[in-house]
């Protein structure tokens, strides 16, 4: 069966980096470490694991960074080659989970169920007893053991040699705890947006928006738009201002609940106007209470620091790499800068809910399936990756790979 495979090859990574720095993100798919090849379906690593056949699998910014050779070296120890990428997956369960003796495990999903995969490989899938503190607390995103256990190192399905990944017709394997059944009412497009929305939900809750706060979101790609939707659904900001470079992104941001959507250069001025603050050395004397960075570049992070009020909070959601920033304003104005990665479970009030459950509600309420702009078969992966790399410029948001015929249940588009 065909799948896309990323192999460890330093020359190819170097070539990819060179080509993408010249031609733009996503243009190095043909020359980089990614290739289309035949693979065997991965073996089940142990009891409790099930096989899933992907239906749709999204292309994420972190995937593009890997393919462009731009990823931070921080990740080197927590991925294992060769791996099949693809961690935003909606698929169909192929077989029942079996226990050690081959008997079915109660409480797991039946074959044919449409599921969305929560890709983080924490202690439980890795069979680590007792689980680390984060996993015991439900915060799988914070698992410290992603390089250990009986699986090859890999922070998520889609970065691990043993599990397969979403960009594959051969299928992937996932532990039962990582599978969430998708309600009937959600289409396949909605379902594939659940994983990115879960990141956005986690970030929106990490921002700790007080009612009436001014919140600025910088970035109009998938991360920015899902975060905007999550902020509107889960919090009560006084003003939600979004900076997005392209017109279609601004329109969508407005539809998803932004009070004002302008191009990024105008965002600082809009924040200044609303907060009626002064400006000195490029920074505002007042500013937004919370600024969410959904881009991850040095320029965007600098702009976030310029826009946030003293003692405000900058939430970094867009994955950064090695960045050079002038932190004088962070120190002088006592600003906090926090990272927000992945998901797990969230504490809302006194209850504890899994992020994916909240994400499903947000996707349904905001109808985020409309962010899926194009579907590609695996064979046209170079075009798909190029499209994903230039999505904004080409009027698109999320690009996905489409594996088989759609199941009769999720046929709405």
């Amino acid at each position, binding site marked *: 069966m065909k799948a896309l495979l990323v192999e460890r090859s330093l020359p190819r990574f170097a070539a990819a980096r060179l080509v993408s720095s010249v031609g733009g993100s996503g243009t190095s798919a043909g020359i980089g470490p990614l290739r289309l090849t035949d693979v065997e379906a991965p073996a089940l690593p142990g009891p409790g694991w099930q096989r899933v056949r992907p239906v749709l699998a999204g292309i994420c910014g972190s995937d593009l960074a890997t393919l462009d050779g731009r990823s931070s070296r921080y990740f080197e120890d927590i991925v294992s080659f060769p791996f099949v990428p693809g961690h935003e997956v909606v698929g169909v369960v192929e077989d029942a989970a079996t226990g050690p003796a081959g008997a079915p495990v109660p409480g797991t999903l039946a074959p044919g169920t449409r599921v969305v995969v929560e890709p983080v490989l924490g202690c439980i899938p890795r069979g680590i007893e007792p689980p680390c503190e984060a996993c015991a607390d439900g915060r799988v995103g914070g698992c410290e053991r992603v390089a250990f256990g009986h699986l090859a190192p890999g922070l998520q399905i889609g970065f691990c040699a043993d599990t397969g990944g979403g960009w594959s017709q051969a299928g992937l394997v996932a532990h039962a705890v990582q599978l969430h059944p998708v309600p009937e009412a959600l289409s396949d497009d909605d379902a594939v947006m659940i994983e990115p929305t879960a990141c956005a939900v986690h970030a929106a809750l990490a921002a700790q928006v007080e009612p009436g706060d001014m919140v600025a979101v910088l970035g109009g790609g998938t991360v920015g738009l899902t975060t905007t939707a999550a902020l509107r659904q889960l919090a009560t900001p006084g003003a939600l201002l979004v900076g997005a470079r392209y017109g279609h992104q601004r329109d969508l941001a407005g539809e998803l609940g932004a009070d004002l959507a302008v191009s990024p250069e*105008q965002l600082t001025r809009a924040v200044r106007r609303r907060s009626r603050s002064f400006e000195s050395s490029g920074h505002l004397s007042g500013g937004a209470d919370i600024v969410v960075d959904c881009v991850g570049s040095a320029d965007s992070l600098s702009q976030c620091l310029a826009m946030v009020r003293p003692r405000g909070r900058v939430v970094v959601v867009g994955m950064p790499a090695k960045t050079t920033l002038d932190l004088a304003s962070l120190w002088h104005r006592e600003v906090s800068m926090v990272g927000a990665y992945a998901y797990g479970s969230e504490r809302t009030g006194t209850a504890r809910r899994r992020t994916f459950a909240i994400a499903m509600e947000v996707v349904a309420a905001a109808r985020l399936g409309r962010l899926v702009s194009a579907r590609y078969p695996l064979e046209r992966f170079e075009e798909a990756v190029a499209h994903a790399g230039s999505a904004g410029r080409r009027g698109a948001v999320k690009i996905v790979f489409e594996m088989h015929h759609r199941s009769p249940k999720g046929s709405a588009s």
Partner: protein
Amino acid sequence: MSPRPGFVLEVDRSTPSTLFWHGEGLRLERLPVGSRVLYAPEPLDPLEDPVTAIREALLHPLGDAEPLPALLRAGMKLTIAFDDVSLPLPPMRRPDARQLVIEQVLDLAAEAGVDDVVLICALALHRRLTEAELRHCVGDRIYDAFEPQGLLQQHDAEDPGNLIHLGLTDHGEDVEINKRAATSDLLVYVNVNLVAMDGGHKSVATGLASYRSLRHHHNARTMQQSKSFMDQHKSELHTSNWRMGRLIADSGVKVFQIETTLNTDTFPPQMRFLERREWEWSARDRAGYIATSATLARTPDRLARQVLHSVRSPYRLTSVQAGEVEAVHAQTTENVYRQQLVAVEGQTDILTLGLPYICPYNVNSIMNPILVACLGLGYFFNMYKGRPLVRQGGVVIMSHPTPWAFHPGHHPSYIDFFEQVLAETTDPLEVGKYEEAYATDPWYVHLYRTGHAYHGVHPFYMWYWCAHALEHLGAVIIVGGDRAAVRRLGFTPASTMADALELASDVVGRDPSLTHLHSPPLIMADVS
């Protein structure tokens, strides 16, 4: 050879192309046969000896006023206020008219032994002047004698300690002006009268006023009822200022008004082709035009602006009057009309304008789209007496590159106005709901008081200036402008004049009449 009066040309097949300003560039456009082109009167003969003329005016004032030496005595408080850098346009060669007048006034003051003298630049809500600009206005001698002691001041309309509220007119308008000026024993105002709107009571009532005062006549309603604001008899702006001016006089502020008029010798000899009638261009003029337009077209904007803004006009004084405000202004207005009026019969369907690189609000700066609109629909459209040159529902076509560019130091609030307010509405009556927020924004106030920025509310005034035109016209088209910027203004972009005429005929019908105001120099139409 005495200067020829203005006249109206009817374009026929032999007529050469007509010169159009196009911002920092020049174009020659072929106007359709049958169009009218208004040419201004040639520059009047200037005064032979301006210094003596000024002296005479000071010693023999008009109206109910004593000669200036009689008003000066030792121990008094004297304030001399003068117009800011928005006049004349382009800036005139040294010595500036203001320098000549103020030096004479100070000579008399020195003779009388007056020690307490303060000079104030009456800039209302305009930006503060730089040192170079002040030196240009008043000359080095005055600058060096007064500025080091802090006696050469610029009016600060946001300084509560230096404003005094003189009362309300019978229409309920606040009159609040500069305190030093109001509490002096004598306030001498030195004016340069470029267009009929300037001068008279407006000098003090607007030039030295605060926002609280100005908003009573600087608003959309007043401008819609000023048809036009260049015509004193039909201008609500004029009437309001006159009420305020009379209240100022009645509250005991003694004003000695000195007004000067200039001829319209606008450009140095190398650029005189700009003012000459095209069929009278010599070979030298034609070469000059070709060289200038080609060079400017190939020069980057910044450099072109630098070059153009360094042009100094060889303006000369044509008259100087002094004394009581209203008497002086009546005389001045006559002199302005004498220089600028051209008689025209009947209105037109389409009015075409070539907009220059400079307007009163971007001296040594960038002409942003809002100023383009103000210059065309505010100033040029309203340069008429009687009836507007273009008929109700007609079209104005303006030629200007209209770049989406702003000077962040001079026009910070304009950027926000363009991005926020005009994105929502271009109706002068509607934009007013944001006015308060911009006028009181502390950052703009800070920049106005300590930097060189126009007051936060100023872009609104620019937009109100267009109110009469926007109400009167059917469409506004800009030729050769940045499409996004023109659309944001609410106007229609066109690439060429021919396209613009096509678009216009959608509004005014096929075979419309067309009139072009040939500028420079300044020209005013007397429409019957």
